[in-house]
């Protein structure tokens, strides 16, 4: 049988061996915690605490402001030290609540339920919304919106994105090995919202152990199946994983719901489980701390707001001076100036590398090799689009579907002339998206 996959894609060095065999360790924060009010797509949250207030672990400190927004919770007990702009991984300054950790971890009381039957569908979605659950794979889209499509009866597939196609990342892998029940139960909760939907656990075939465990766990679940995907980047991109598992294709102006699909990543589904069954807000996530500069690469369960400095310390510090530090994976993550930024809801990894491919290689003239066209999962011609972007030829850029770029980075990766194709196309897309918003 042909393997489930998509057309295009690349096979970069995956670097997962560094961290994949070590169990998840808890990293308790020691210093102050920083909670940016904007850790999601949409309106920033509004603070509901003031400087000097005492807060408890699990206490809401900022609430959603508007429909597309998400609340923020304290992940330690302590005192609100300041509400001021702080730098985040993107390099922007974002208004943040800073909490001084008292080290006591006094917790609020949660309201767990014993069985899903206690809640109506509406109450389930409400719990996910209240918990501040957002897409933890990187996009940060509020999950409750995904769970409340216009026509819920038309949702046919709920896809658990367990591909983890980014190089170096092993957080989803460890979660699937260590807490697969939470993932399966989270998926069951989501399925309970959609009567006509079937659940798919979509795992890349470089994780046969996870596939076996999940198959075993779901053998009596008639609505859930485990699907092995070909290992290839960007297999875990939303559009590509929908195509691989269901054969349906959507473009940039469609939502997965338009193809009858809902896609969420492993950590997000586990957060849904915590929110609905345990009544716990989104307070922590798994972060892969890795790279050849890190002494002891591994995965940590991290409280949101923890400073990256502390994560590096937990991983034994640097064994070699890093040249480039990336929050997230090497293909789609953000390069950061220094470690003084907080872990947010969408931070899947902290990758510290002793060399920087980008500054090491100068870009030269395009030789028209066509490798970018071959690998582009969006089936557009990056070489041509980058040219249009460079010359600000809007018309041609739009006519040749420049907006269909998903910014996966495959074209820049393969380019033998080392041209910044993704980057150039991305900046043109930003301008065009801005223009659309103005209209």
């Amino acid at each position, binding site marked *: 049988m042909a393997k489930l996959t998509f057309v295009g894609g690349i096979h970069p060095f995956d670097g997962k061996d560094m961290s994949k065999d070590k169990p998840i360790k808890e990293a308790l924060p020691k210093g102050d915690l920083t909670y940016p009010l904007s850790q999601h797509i949409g309106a920033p949250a509004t603070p509901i605490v003031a400087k000097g207030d005492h807060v408890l672990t699990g206490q809401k400190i900022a609430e959603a402001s508007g429909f597309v927004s998400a609340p923020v919770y304290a992940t330690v007990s302590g005192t609100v030290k300041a509400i001021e702009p702080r730098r985040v991984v993107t390099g922007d300054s974002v208004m943040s609540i800073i909490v001084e950790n008292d080290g006591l971890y006094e917790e609020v009381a949660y309201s767990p339920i014993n069985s899903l039957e206690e809640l109506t569908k509406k109450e389930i979605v409400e719990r996910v919304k209240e918990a501040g659950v957002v897409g933890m794979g990187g996009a940060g889209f509020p999950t409750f919106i995904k769970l409340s499509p216009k026509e819920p009866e038309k949702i046919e597939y709920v896809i658990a994105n367990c591909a983890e196609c980014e190089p170096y990342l092993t957080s989803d892998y460890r979660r699937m090995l260590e807490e697969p029940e939470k993932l399966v139960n989270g998926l069951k909760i989501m399925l309970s919202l959609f009567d006509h939907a079937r659940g798919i656990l979509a795992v890349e075939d470089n994780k046969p152990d996870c596939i076996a465990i999940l198959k075993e766990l779901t053998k009596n679940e008639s609505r859930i199946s485990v699907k092995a995907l070909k290992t290839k980047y960007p297999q875990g991109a939303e559009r590509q994983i929908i195509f691989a598992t269901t054969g349906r294709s959507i473009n940039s102006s469609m939502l997965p719901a338009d193809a009858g699909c809902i896609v969420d990543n492993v950590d997000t589904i586990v957060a849904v489980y915590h929110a609905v069954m345990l009544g716990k807000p989104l307070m922590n996530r798994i972060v892969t701390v890795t790279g050849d500069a890190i002494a002891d690469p591994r995965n940590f369960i991290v409280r949101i707001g923890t400073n990256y400095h502390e994560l590096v310390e937990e991983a034994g510090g640097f064994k070699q001076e890093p040249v480039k530090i990336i929050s997230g994976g090497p293909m789609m993550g953000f390069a*950061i100036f220094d470690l003084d930024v907080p872990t947010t809801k969408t931070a899947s990894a902290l990758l510290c590398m002793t060399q920087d491919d980008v*500054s090491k290689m100068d870009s030269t003239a395009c030789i028209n090799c066509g490798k970018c066209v071959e690998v582009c999962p969006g089936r557009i011609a990056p070489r041509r689009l980058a040219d249009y972007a460079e010359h600000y030829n809007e018309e041609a850029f739009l006519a040749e579907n420049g907006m269909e770029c998903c910014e996966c980075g495959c074209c820049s990766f393969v*380019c*033998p002339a*080392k041209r910044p194709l993704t980057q150039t196309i991305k900046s043109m897309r930003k301008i065009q998206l801005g223009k659309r918003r103005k209209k």
Partner: protein
Amino acid sequence: MSELKKVSSNPHIRSKVTTSSIMLAVVVALLPAAGFGIYNFGLDALILIAVTVATTVITEYTYEKFMGKDITIGDYSAVVTGLLLGLNLPSTAPWWIGAVGGVFAILVVKMLFGGLGQNFMNPALAGRCFLLISFTSIMTNFDCDAYTGATPLAALKNGESVNVLDMVIGRTSGTIGETSMIAIVIGACFLVLLGVIDLRISGSYILSFIVFLCLFGGHGMDAAYISAHLAGGGLMLGAFFMATDYVTRPITKAGQYVFGILLGCLTGIFRLFGPSAEGVSYAIIIGNLLTPLIEKATLPKAFGTKGGKRA
């Protein structure tokens, strides 16, 4: 950690393949053909190849130095052009033919249009065609020490019989690098294995040429006739090393098939109905001219823009 780290937009990793590694692979892949050419035609062939390579590299260097541009001879693309040009000359040509061709290929066809990636024709082929038109008798004189008389293709055209085995091995007259089908295919396999070229263009070129021969060749599906046409002249060298030139072929997959088929038909027309027995060089440079059109007409459909389900 006092100093700030480097930042850049994603992605942060790059493949190890570079322009120079690709060009170097092409140079290596051409060595069997060049080696056989030197073995077949002797010292004259070696001198000509040396002259063309030296001229192309020196021309590129001098132009860039003179114009105050970055020196790009380190990417080996000029070496590839020189080598290809050399392989496309008859061993009897005087050394200055190589030099004139090399200067024309690099200066006029490549550098004046903006250098690497900007030329609209394959420089080596354009250089050869320039020489063919300007110095026709020199360029079509294949009488050397080892061989006299017509090239196998010309003999074929006149209705004479040819030894196909000799043509496959390369023990015939012709330009320096085109005679040995085996040597060329060995080099091509190397490039295919490395992923430098694929068989979309070469395959559709050769297949469509075979179909054209069957339809219009007047010999039906005669295997000996077809193999003689495949092994003879510049078809193999052209299909694997010059039609596949990145810069001057369409970038889209569908466009590459169209391009290959176009070349197959053009080569067929020139070889069967033209005055000369050869036709590969002209077919390819005409195809080069149509590349922008083909590319535009064959842009892929962006993912998901049709919607719907996979069958």
